[in-house]
């Protein structure tokens, strides 16, 4: 864990990026703390790679600042920045040996020869490739090339290491292994990692903090637990893990609990920063959803139990609401739902999160509702 008192090493200040009329990064602010492993997670086209490339210097932001160790580097060339990149395609130089590939950055910085030899030997030992230093990239496996790419960047001791989906080309088993390996290297060398991926499991496994990006907007930045349990909005709630969303309007707020009027009644959930009258959704994870065969005190939503699937120790069930919405539950296998019978769904308000919702989504959901 990175202490919260750590200084920001990269400060991205109100960055915008346009390709022609295409607004790919919107008003993005992000601090990367010294020594942390921060992952930007998003689907393809979310602007995550463009953001990383702006930090690396391969793209210029249309507006905004990028501070590296307090200095604005937004207009500087990649070779004038103290950051290094691990490319998705590795981009190893095919005409050089592994040693020369790794030594390239040090040679460019005119480091004395004997020191180059020492540094390269050390880093190759760290990534367990000592025996390969005189080979060419074409003679290595995918996993080995990946490790060379990491060594070639790390040997320069950059202020920040940028990684653009570096494990994308590896098979699942190797990818899992490399995730742990990367985390080990990052802790050992204490170098800040800014990592980009579309794989949420990868992000949750490795990161100190995760930033969720969608349509050019950084939706939320936080530790993995907060991202999962305290999603900032409807998008984040659906993007990470599986969840059930009930759209509605906030009808009352008391402390950190809000009452939400939804199509099938009123429900409760934890809430922060939202006001009465706002459009919102309550997000309930399948494993937090409870059921009863009778209406319960407080609130409950009636539906019909439809499908149940055993997945090892867990039972995945689906309940259909009168409006057709499908609600997912995960229960212990010893506690099945009554087949095709009426059930009443409820939850502990502390287990549900009320999230902001773009108005049009809620409006659509409420259009057919009886109470409007």
């Amino acid at each position, binding site marked *: 864990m990175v202490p919260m008192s750590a200084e920001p090493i990269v400060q991205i200040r109100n960055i915008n990026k346009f390709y022609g009329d295409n607004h790919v990064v919107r008003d993005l602010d992000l601090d990367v703390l010294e020594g942390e492993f921060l992952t930007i997670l998003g689907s393809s086209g979310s602007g995550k790679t463009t953001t990383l490339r702006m930090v*690396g*210097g*391969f793209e210029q932001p249309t507006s905004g600042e990028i501070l590296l160790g307090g200095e604005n580097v937004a207009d500087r*060339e*990649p*070779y004038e920045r103290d*950051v*290094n*990149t691990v*490319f*998705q*395609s590795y*981009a*190893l*130089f*095919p*005409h050089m040996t592994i040693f020369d590939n790794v030594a*390239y*950055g040090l040679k*460019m*910085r005119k480091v004395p020869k004997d020191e180059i030899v020492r540094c390269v030997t050390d880093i190759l030992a760290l990534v367990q490739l000592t025996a390969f230093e005189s080979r060419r990239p074409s003679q290595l496996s995918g996993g080995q090339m990946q490790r060379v790419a990491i060594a*070639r*960047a790390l040997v*320069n001791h950059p202020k920040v290491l940028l990684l653009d989906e570096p494990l994308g080309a590896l098979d699942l088993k190797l990818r899992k292994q490399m995730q742990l390996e990367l985390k080990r290297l990052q802790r050992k060398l204490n170098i800040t990692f800014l990592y980009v991926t579309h794989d949420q499991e990868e992000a949750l496994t490795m990161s100190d903090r995760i930033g969720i990006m969608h349509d050019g907007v950084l939706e939320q930045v936080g530790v993995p637990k907060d991202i999962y349990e305290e999603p900032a909005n409807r998008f984040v709630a659906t993007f990470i893990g599986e969840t059930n969303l009930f759209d509605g309007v906030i009808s009352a707020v008391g402390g950190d609990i809000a009452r939400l009027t939804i199509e099938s009644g009123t429900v409760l959930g934890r809430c922060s920063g939202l006001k009465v009258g706002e459009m919102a959704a309550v997000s309930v994870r399948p494993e937090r959803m409870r059921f009863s065969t009778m209406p319960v005190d407080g609130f409950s939503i009636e539906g019909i139990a439809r499908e149940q699937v055993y997945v090892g120790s867990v039972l995945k069930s689906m309940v259909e609401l009168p409006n057709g919405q499908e609600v997912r539950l995960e229960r212990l296998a010893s506690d099945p739902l009554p087949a095709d019978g009426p059930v009443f769904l409820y939850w502990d308000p502390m287990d549900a999160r009320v999230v902001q919702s773009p108005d049009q989504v809620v409006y659509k959901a409420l259009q057919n509702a009886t109470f409007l």
Partner: protein
Amino acid sequence: MKLNSHEFRSNTLPAAITVIPAVAWLAFFVAIPLVYVLVMSFCSLDEYYNVAFQFTLGNYADLLYPNYVQIYAQSIVIAALSTAICLALGYPFAYLISRTFREHKVILYMLVIIPFWTNSLIRIYGWRTFLGASGFLNAALVGLHLVDSPVDFLFNQAATVLGMTYDLFPFMVLPLYTAIEKLDEAQIEASHDLGAHGLSTLFRVVVPQTVSGIFSGCIMVFIPSLGAFYISDILGGGNSDVIGNLIQRQFQSGNNWPLGAALSIILIAITLILVKIYQSTGGDMESLGV
């Protein structure tokens, strides 16, 4: 091995049908003329300057005339200069084409291709008209009072080198473009990322990975410029003969076909040696159009 009729029909016959026309074509238009030239180069002349089928090595001995040796040297210098200039101009140009966006790429590409489609003789005469004593360039220079009398741009080695460079430029650019286009953009970014700026990246990452394009471009310019007699005729005016001029003269005004044949054989030998060198450095024969 004995073939049964089924095997013949399913393997041998289709193979023969597809291969025979190509083999026949090559035999008729390449192999037979080449053998003819080779045989001719060992023939002698009778007293009426007719080819006599009488074996001699005299033609090859005649190749060592001091005047001829001087022209070989001159031809090699002209070819080497043209190649060097084509490479120096063609590499940045090919780099530019391969690294620009689509619409501009087509325009740049067409700048090379359209002259390439136009008859080379016409383009070379165009230069003669442009550079001549009463040509456009001299008219402009005199008109602007930059010079008092027309400058002699034509009829020297420089004019021949200019013509060769101009005429053969596409042959340099196209293989270079192919080689540079294949290079992954991330290679250049990785080099920049590791602290190398433009020139370092060019010489340490881009050039080493496009060597085969450089070699093939050089061969495609060097070899034709040894033979392109019409360019040295039109622009060089007899002051900058290349090997091609010697050959052409033996077959026409000199009426000494066996000597022309021997010269041709030497030119073919030079070509083969260069291609062999290219191949031994790992060059890819496809990018030579072979």
